[in-house]
């Protein structure tokens, strides 16, 4: 509950303390700022629940903006980038499960590889992204800005997969076994461990690709550096939301709150004219404080 209280506190303070915050324009801007992190964090959470980490998220985000900005029709680049992202995720998952590489090393290696490929495709930012991507991010429907629909959709998908499906239950089962040292407990129940873990990494990459699509729609071009630090920020958001890095414990609403908290923090401090360097300090302090005060071993928040 702590992060939620912090969110409410910041919102109240900003609404009273500044004129700009509560304006519809700023709120819609805030949602759009939060969206790529929210999407990437939901993906990151799949991997963290099975006691893994995905450091390739940032590179995959940059990579998908670069693919979308290629000089090719959108009906080709759009499906292609998701197929490539799935391939990246599957490689991560196979390295972790079959080759027994530590998740940090496996995904760190992938981060370098994908970053290199992205810079080959698009050394500096530029190009244009397909019109339908821009419209789906910057437009509005029935007077409601598109990011609202994005938020509803990704949260619905995340909820369905994590908390209302067999796959989700198996993720928690595997992570719970790992966290308590019974590494084969889930397998003994008949949970197809390897397949589920690989799928978690694929899901993480697909969500990162989706975050890349959203960012491409916002910046209207491809950028090899746009995804930088998303891997660490998404881990921060997941951890703020109460998900245990040892696996098996966490909730989607927690991750959503964590992602919004981070976005809110930078939006609010920008409005309050706080230097970006101080913002980083505050972010780190907040992460440490929130995680130390969280109660352990409970599901959700």
């Amino acid at each position, binding site marked *: 509950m702590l992060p939620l209280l912090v969110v409410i506190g910041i919102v109240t303070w900003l609404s009273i303390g500044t004129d700009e915050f509560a304006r519809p324009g700023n709120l819609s801007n805030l949602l759009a700022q939060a969206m790529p992190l929210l999407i990437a964090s939901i993906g990151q959470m799949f991997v963290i629940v099975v006691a893994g980490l995905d450091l390739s998220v940032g590179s995959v985000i940059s990579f998908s903006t670069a693919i979308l900005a290629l000089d090719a029709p959108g009906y080709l680049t759009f499906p292609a980038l998701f197929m490539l992202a799935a391939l990246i995720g599957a490689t991560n998952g196979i390295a972790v499960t079959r080759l027994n590489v530590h998740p940090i090393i496996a995904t760190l290696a992938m981060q370098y590889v994908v970053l290199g490929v992205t810079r080959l495709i698009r050394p500096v930012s530029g190009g244009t992204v397909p019109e339908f991507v821009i419209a789906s991010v910057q437009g509005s429907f029935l007077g409601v800005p598109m990011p609202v629909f994005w938020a509803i959709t990704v949260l619905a998908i995340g909820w369905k997969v994590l908390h209302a*499906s*067999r796959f989700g239950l198996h993720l928690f089962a595997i*992570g719970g*076994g790992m*966290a308590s040292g019974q590494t084969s407990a889930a397998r003994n*129940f008949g949970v197809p461990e390897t397949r589920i873990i690989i799928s978690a990494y694929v899901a993480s990459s697909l969500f990162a690709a989706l975050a890349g699509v959203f960012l491409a729609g916002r910046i209207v071009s491809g950028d090899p550096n746009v995804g930088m630090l998303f891997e660490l920020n998404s881990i921060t958001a997941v951890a703020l939301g109460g998900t245990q890095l040892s696996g098996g414990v966490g909730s989607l609403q927690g991750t959503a709150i964590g992602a919004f908290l981070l976005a809110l923090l930078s939006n609010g401090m920008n409005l309050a004219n706080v230097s970006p360097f101080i913002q980083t300090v505050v972010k780190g302090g907040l992460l440490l404080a929130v995680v130390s005060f969280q109660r352990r071993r409970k599901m959700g928040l």
Partner: protein
Amino acid sequence: MSTIIEMRGISKSFGPVAALSNVDFRLEPGSIHALMGENGAGKSTLMKILAGVLRPTSGEILLAGKPLSLSSPRDGLDAGISVVFQEQSLLANLTVAENMFLGREPRTRWGGIDYPTMRAKTREALAQLDLDFDPDRQVAELGIAERQFLEIAHGIHANARVMILDEPTAALNAADVDVLNRNIRRLASEGCAIVYVSHRLEEIFELCDTVTVLKDGALVGTRPVSEMNTASLIAMMVGRELSDMFPPRADETGAPMLGIEDMVLQPGAAALNLTVNAGEIVALAGLEGQGQSAIARALVGLHVPVSGHIHLKGQTVPLPLPRESGLLKMHAAGLGFVPEDRKEEGLLLNLSVAQNIALGRFAGVPAVAPASGTRAVVQRMMDAMNIKAAGPRARVGSLSGGNQQKVLFGRALAAEMDVLVIEEPTRGVDVGAKAEIYGLLRDFTAAGGAVLVLSREALELIGLADRIYVIHDNAIAGEIAATEATEHKLLDMALSGGKAENA
């Protein structure tokens, strides 16, 4: 009655150590079959093979006459073989219902998990056991008894035809035992074959109809319980002569080296007192989990007793010791501890023999003091103990069990301790190395040291020790000179908790 399970000629060895050799075991539907034997006789290994956790080195399992190949516990469960092990196998972060259905969850039309059905069926299965707890509770919140019942309910729900209960009453109170026994009888009357592993004789006579006894990994026999009585059952479990692998005992002992005064292991347990003299090997005997290991660990701060004192070479140390620094403090004072599980708790398997031995030398020495003379000490230990390794730089993990155990002793000896507290000195060690280790311990006491040892093997304790304390329910049930002790007497004392005469 037709046989449901037949295990034929089952053998299992872990490396060079044979845990089971050529064991036959048959189960009939509707029968409650007791499996007995001393600690380490191979009961758990046999049951793990039947459950699919371990694979036999040789032998075959027939299910209703057809060969059965088990490569995972899942295969066992699918074949209708369900186990409640002593160690828990539930996932604590999931709910009761999720644990019941994990791996075969009911689905809704849209592919999601059908939680209402899961809850209802979980309630149903628990109701069959006369239990009523919320299917949405997290398993982490359940007590030990509740978890055990949940595992049984899990087996019932999987339509188990064979249910293995490995010491199910060890952690239960009398009321829970009644509930459990009622359910076991009901399951049997419904045609389930039940294997009941227990040390409690009264339970065997009350509940079971057939008993199979194992000894040292071999089958002693299978008899109807109605033909047996307590004496004949104990005789079946013991029945062996002392072998002559033990060195001669000490003629005389010196002054007290280690004393325990009024140690209370757990709230409500009786205070216990014992002494170990110079030149003496004293053993703690008893059934598993009665407190022997807690006594040993309390001496180095790895178990937190309620109260008491230690007397070490005339020096008095109050208990409990600090958890963080207790071990180091006692090391510095001259008391060394050799833990039971050398792989998990004792050795650093990836480091060399030399590093593992040298680790012991630095208790009581400032952390930045120069480490001189290590090479000579290591070489002396390796020669004295006849450690067979490629050299001091060989990785400990590459050594045989016996040599690993010697390295562990070498660490304690290199530190020049006066008192050694040793858990399971020869676990997973072959016969030749056992004799060598016994000899080393005697050499240590002959030079004026004192040893407190505990072991699951009664024979080892009788042969090795000078005096034996029998521990029951966190208290001393009796003390006996090793020359007067027999396996029969020890088992009797351990089972009856000191109510029988202390010979």
